């Protein structure tokens, strides 16, 4: 059904890429006493709000956008976490 959808895209550094930001955060958290903490990885969560004929098409467009621009495949992976229906028509 046609409507407005919000697609949640997660962009993360690929596992093979060192994440110095995550490393520094892990260090800080360990200093706060979280000694059990093994690893911190920091990524991005991007919300795309768009009009589409159906949720599957919304997801397809978001995936295309992520491949073209939101993630750089040399260093990042992405996945679609959820497709939320904001407003459905008909």
């Amino acid at each position: 059904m046609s409507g407005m959808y919000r697609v949640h895209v997660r962009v993360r550094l690929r596992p093979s890429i060192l994440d110095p930001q995550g490393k520094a955060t892990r260090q800080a958290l360990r200093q706060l006493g979280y000694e059990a903490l093994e690893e911190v990885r920091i990524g991005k969560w991007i919300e795309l709000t768009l009009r589409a004929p159906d949720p599957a098409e919304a997801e397809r467009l978001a995936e295309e956008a992520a491949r073209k621009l939101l993630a750089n495949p040399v260093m990042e992976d992405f996945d679609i976490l959820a497709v939320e229906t904001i407003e459905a028509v008909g």
Partner: protein
Amino acid sequence: MADTLRVGVVVFPGSNCDHDVYYVCKHQMGWRTRFIWHKETDLRDLDLIILPGGFSYGDYLRSGAIARFSPVMHAVTRFARKGGYVLGICNGFQILTEAGLLPGALLRNASLRFICRDVFVRVERTDTAFTSAYSPGAVLRIPIAHGEGNYTADADTLRRLEESGQVIFRYVTADGRLDPEANPNGSMHHIAGLLNDRGNVLGMMPHPERAADPVLGRTDGLGLFASLAESLVGAALKR
């Protein structure tokens, strides 16, 4: 017919080294130099295009990621594919990797800090249009100023780059040795500057334009512009 090199310096919203490199090209080298606004798409009047340093489009999303899709970059890509010469400095290097004109990517510095200081880089090849005026193995003192200069590529790409001699500048000690201490940002293989396989597109993190005028106290970057003069002006004259 051109009597000198015709150079364009791209200006993105957020470029901040555009005037520095324009100054070197126009006033020191005497080249016919103009600014190219990021919305321009006709670059046929040029021999060399320079993508200057700065923070194009605020470096939002990733450094160079938005700039890559600007109207001018489509034209720059066409220009490069036809064999036109392109030099990307700092943010310009980041844009070239995002645009796929050079392989790999520039990640956040390993130290997480923005680094603004002089470094030493070794000239790895002098048989290129960008480095012909240097002597083999020369060690240059040139400033860097970046937060994302940590060069990364997968193992296959790195092997290919090394085999085909595309690493043009490497971070070294003052006496030219490879040493982790001399690598300011964690770049793989100490890569500071990279040439494409065709030899017409160079990306580099150090700023040669900031080390080109004696008034600034150092001139090791001038050789890059002198190389381009040597290599390209003759070709431009024949056109």
